[in-house]
């Protein structure tokens, strides 16, 4: 039991989210005000959740672009 990681707290989650958003801000150059980070993250999670709905299927053989 000694190697069980400590439970994640709400503070940890908030800190991780802020860190993620700060990194993203640095990468994209688009500023995200601290007070907006939770909302942006929520919308990002929505997008990623929808993206996961695109599972394997016939679309994998479809072209991205066709002249």
């Amino acid at each position, binding site marked *: 039991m000694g190697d069980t990681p400590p439970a994640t707290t709400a503070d940890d989650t908030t800190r991780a989210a802020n860190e993620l958003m700060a990194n993203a801000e640095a990468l994209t150059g688009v500023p995200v005000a601290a007070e907006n980070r939770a909302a*942006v993250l929520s919308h990002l999670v929505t997008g990623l959740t929808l993206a996961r709905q695109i599972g394997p299927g016939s679309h994998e053989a479809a072209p991205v672009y066709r002249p």
Partner: protein
Amino acid sequence: MTGAGSAHEIAAAVKSGKATATGVLADTLAGIEAHNGALNAFTAVTAARARAEAAAVDAKVAAGEDPGPLAGVPFAVKNLFDLSGEITLAGSKINRDDPPASADATLVARLVAAGAVCVGALNMGEYAYDFTGENVHEGPSRNPHDLSRMSGGSSGGSGSAVGGRLVPLALGSDTNGSIRVPSSFCGIFGLKPTYGRLPRTGTFPFVDSLDHLGPMARSVQDLAIAFDAMLGTDPGDPVCNDPAPVPVADRLEPGPLRVRRLGGFFRGQGDAAVDAATDRIAVALGAGDPLELSGVTEARASAFIISNIEGAALHEERLRTRADDYEPMVRDRLLAGTLLPGIHYVRAQRVRRAFAAQLAEVFAETDLLVAPATPFTAPAIGQQIGTINGEEVLLRPNIGIYTQPISFIGLPVVVVPAGVIDDMPIGVQLIAPPWREDIALAAALRLEREGLATPPAPAFR
């Protein structure tokens, strides 16, 4: 004769000398003055240019010249269309700093050339990223059947102005449902043409690979006449790819159609009464066995992802410099779009190809598909939570669940007003093969003639 009349009736009266364009305009401006305070549909009334355009129509009639198929018809446009001398707001605060447009959008110019009279610009959701018709900068456009309810978006002012009988004709844009949702909520006809049919030159974009423009009106004939007047390519929009535009207004006599009602994803997600209204329309059109498409959930998710990423790309520079001037929810969604991995965009484009190929096979044996336009009637302004599949969910992202998978592959759609549920209108989508707007319009005309598709009178007047 006012904005409460139909476009084809106004044009016939003006051409025959029974009415003048100047007189119709005066009545229309008086109606806007009297009722726009309740609806908040207009953000600008262009009375001066309208008077000049109406006078020009009357001069043509007096000289014995043909004033055009839309002679003296008042119309207004979602405020993402350029109007010469007006600032193109696109529903935003940021664009208020832009200079006025130096010319009309191509579709506006074509309507005016056909004799129509432009009376103003209409409220909309900020940068068209909206299904509600709400706008924090201008206030919400309101539903003419219950002022406490949403007009639908993002062409909310267009739905409100036409449903509220301020004008007989308006233009809107539709990326994921922004013509079809307000048409459903406000109880009017709306046409989202085939992607690439009508040029978008002189309009503020949202998602280049999904943006469509089209008319909204209270009769099928009005949609068809306006559509015909706007046909044709334009070098300003390289996406516009209509090699042989054929007018439709004179060939809408409905013949036998092979019709199917879309089931599966398109049934049971919203109110049961919506499904009942959709079934009535399908039965009236002689629909055969229900059709269940595969991959609709993926199609809708892909439309969301493409919209989010392309929209974010369009707004990247403004997000860097003017983030605080956006409506917060629009800004935060666009910021999220800057962070979505590109691999999802690539997958979404593959889904688009595969879904379009599936529908091409369907349309080899079917002329028309019938589906609900919205999962419920207009919610209350400000409402945040709705019911989908029996579960309480965030309302706003789900208003367009039935429209997104269709515009995703650019199919032409006519929304018909298919009755009322608890005194509120509900619309149904008639979906045709690519480039066959005539089929959807012909079916809509049949329903209109049979009394099954009639815009309800607005309650607020």
